[in-house]
């Protein structure tokens, strides 16, 4: 069953305006938070077990507590640079409930004693940008932002910043570089952003969904949040589902929800004439699961990790039997080749090599040992770079090859596609 905590009022008309939002209990969390001690808010979030919804799944409360205990200015950045292929939940949340995110941000900023925060929004998201910008103006007018918020003595300013459309800027240090006006490429760690981030000051970067969840947690308490999900994966998660299913879209369900039920109930099952073949559970950089594995899995961090993949950003990509895996991998490799920032050598050169290999396999211009080369190149790209983009490119390759090797070998041996459907890789040939 869908369990709408965050998306509860999304169908109400006008929920994206301040009036609509306040009508359904908006900004109560902020009022509550401003009366609490900042440390207590951090403890509350820690107790809720909320984990970062951007992809890594790191405990949010824990992240906040890494801030050094000093008087330096701090920054809170909302990562709305949603670029992971297959993920579109943040756009949906910003378009329909911008105030929920803004409220979460003000509460979080109060908790970490930050006076300035930014929403870094993806350049392509023009409509959400306009909506968020308008919502911020409304919040300023209503006194939720600016000097002395609601008479509490807490000052906070919030700005929205449009990116230029680079996938890599979704990585937090690259986001900081971009926001600083530099080329959007990741920085070396250490120092970590919590110690030296934006403008070399302590900085916290959180995902849109995470900040929206903070609002809910402050409204309803950590204990209420923990009722959903499992011990380690608490609460609900918003998924963006795509593929040849009857009802693609954004859904919020409890963590640890069985995927089989999710596919059949929420997604309305496969479209007629298509058979479920494989699942990418959390956006394109997560290793693929076969239908068999996927149907036994539950959607939570631990179960996915035990299957060798990740829940990631919740971009559920459902692959059917008419899809050619070689073609799909080639498309993914084209994406990562295009998006590599070019800073670290293994990623800069490796992503290009992977794309060239998958493309020549697709066109039937390869020898069988190219499959082994593909695997070797991918494995040697893993864990060798500043950020995780080279892993993100390599993980799908390794999992595609280990689970669907026959399709690759068929392409090479027979010089045509095994599934015969819409194989672009071969069509180029």
């Amino acid at each position, binding site marked *: 069953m869908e369990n709408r905590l965050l998306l509860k009022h999304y169908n109400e008309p006008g929920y994206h305006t301040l009036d609509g939002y306040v009508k359904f209990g908006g900004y109560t969390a902020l009022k509550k938070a401003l009366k609490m001690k900042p440390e207590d808010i951090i403890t509350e979030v820690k107790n809720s077990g909320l984990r970062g919804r951007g992809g890594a799944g790191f405990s949010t409360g824990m992240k906040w507590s890494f801030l050094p205990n000093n008087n330096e200015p701090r920054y809170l950045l909302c990562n709305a640079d949603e670029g992971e292929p297959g993920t579109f939940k943040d756009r949906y949340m910003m378009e329909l409930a911008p105030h929920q995110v803004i409220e979460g941000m003000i509460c979080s900023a109060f908790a970490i004693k930050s006076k300035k925060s930014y929403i870094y929004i993806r350049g392509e998201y023009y409509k959400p940008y306009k909506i968020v910008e308008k919502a911020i103006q409304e919040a300023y007018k209503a006194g939720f932002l600016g000097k002395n918020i609601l008479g509490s003595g807490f000052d906070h300013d919030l700005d929205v910043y449009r990116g230029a459309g680079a996938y890599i800027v979704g990585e937090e240090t690259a986001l900081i570089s971009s926001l600083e006006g530099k080329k959007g490429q990741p920085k070396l760690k250490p120092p970590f952003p919590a110690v030296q981030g934006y403008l070399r000051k302590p900085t916290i970067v959180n995902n849109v969904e995470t900040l929206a969840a903070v609002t809910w947690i402050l409204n309803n308490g950590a204990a209420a949040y923990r009722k959903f999900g499992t011990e380690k994966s608490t609460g609900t998660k918003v998924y963006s589902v795509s593929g040849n299913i009857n009802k693609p879209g954004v859904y919020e369900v409890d963590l640890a929800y069985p995927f089989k039920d999710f596919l059949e109930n929420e997604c309305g099952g496969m479209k007629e004439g298509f058979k479920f073949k494989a699942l990418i559970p959390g956006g394109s950089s997560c290793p693929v699961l076969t239908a068999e594995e996927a149907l036994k899995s539950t959607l939570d961090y631990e179960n996915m990790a035990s299957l060798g993949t990740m829940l990631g950003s919740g971009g559920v990509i459902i692959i059917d039997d008419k899809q050619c895996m070689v073609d799909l991998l080639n498309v993914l490799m084209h994406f990562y080749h295009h998006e590599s920032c070019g800073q670290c050598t*293994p990623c800069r050169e490796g992503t290009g090599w992977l794309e060239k290999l998958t493309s020549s396999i697709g066109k039937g211009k390869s020898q069988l040992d190219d499959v082994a080369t593909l695997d070797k190149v991918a494995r040697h790209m893993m864990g060798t770079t500043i950020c995780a983009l080279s892993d993100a490119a390599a993980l799908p390759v390794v999992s595609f090859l280990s689970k669907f090797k026959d399709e690759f070998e068929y392409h090479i041996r027979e010089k045509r596609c095994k599934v015969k459907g819409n194989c672009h890789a071969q069509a180029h040939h």
Partner: protein
Amino acid sequence: MPKLTIDGKPVEVAAGTSVIKAAQTLNIPIAHYCWHEGLSVAGACRMCMVEIEKNPKLQIACNTPVAEGMVVHTNNDKVKDAVKWALDFHLINHPLDCPICDQAGECKLQDYYMNYGLYSPEMNQRKVKKSKAMSLGDRVVLDQERCILCSRCVRFTTEVSKTHELGIFNRGDRCELSTFEGRPLNNNYSLNTVDICPVGALTSKDFRFKQRVWFLKDFETLCNGCSTGCNVTVSYNQNGVFRVRPRVNQEVNGFWMCDEGRDIYKHTNKEFRLDQVIERNDQVGGAAVKGKPVALAIQEIGKSLSATVKKGGLESIALVVTAQYTVEEYEALFELFKNTVKSPHVYYWKNNEEDFDSFDGLLNRGDKNPNTKGLSDTMTKFGFKGTWEDFEKQATSKSFQYVVVAGPEDQSAYPDLEKKLEILNKAGEVIWLSSCKNEKFKNFKWQIPMKSFLEKEGTFVNFKGIKQNIKAGMSIIPTSLSLQEFSKGVFESMGGMA
């Protein structure tokens, strides 16, 4: 002071030191391209992977600070495999230009391939093509295909020269090093980018295609281009000197030197040198007589000096010195003048007075002499105080019989040379000691070929008072003399008068 173990060897270094530096103190080589001691850490080449115990992933040695009890392995199979692959990623799109690449022979890609690679390449796809032989400025040529994007040069222009001409544009394997629009790489430190380039992407226009590096021999000396006294390595072979590169000395020049200093070798090569004695023969109407053996010339000079001393007393012989010789040479010459010639007329010839004290903030100084401090110290030691102004006052007309001039080695640093030569000629018969030839010297009585700074040894004292030695690295004009040899010869032919 954390203690750690690298490849089984214990070492204790200051907290905050990176693993790669700690390994350096133990002389354990760690492969690297982007890391350079004089620049910030980029961590981009991923070559310096090391295994640190209790760490699941390999770490880069350049950005990992040492910690107490750390156990580092730099040479096990896991590390070797990682380095081999990092190298392979560097090489897959690198062109096979080695035959025409100037860096071949001192290229880090070649070196590490021999140490860590030696595989047969698996890359059978088309390579990425980029621009070749692009001129970046007056002195530097870029080959974008050869560039491994280590960003050393970019960091140099940002952090050291602070001129910000270079940047890496575009993303992924389309990344290209280039200059910003309308900002060519023309700063006075641009050739340092060529030195720090670990591959053949940046090459020097001056050195380009002149020699293969394996035909060159190196020796260490000092730059004599200005009073900073940068430590340099000179590359030469039987055909002459081909390039000058900086050598690390944290007290003097750090890792760098200026482009101006790299041209100092030019006036030492044969074609610019005074390679024989030239005498003005008044009996044949002042025509130049060339090729008299140096020893004979010195003897004649000695005889005429001693004759003058006997005849004319104190006022008859003057000495004018430039600050381009070594301390030892000044001592020998002053010794001769104080004790044998017994003339108090010793004058210091200061050049380019207007910008003499200028400084560009990094290394280059307006004082274009390597030994100004050494000269003034030695003059004080011998009690000589004369300056050029004093000389000019004295030298109205033929006030001296002879004027011995220890002239400049690098004439380009003496912009008003011609004007001063006139004054010298007016003052008396000039005995000109210099390593360089010049048509304008034709009125001089004697021209004696001197050694350039590459051919003699001695001490230069830089502007800070740091004493540094130059070495006799090569012989270019075999008949040329140092001032010591000149003084000794004159002393002996003057009959050792005391």
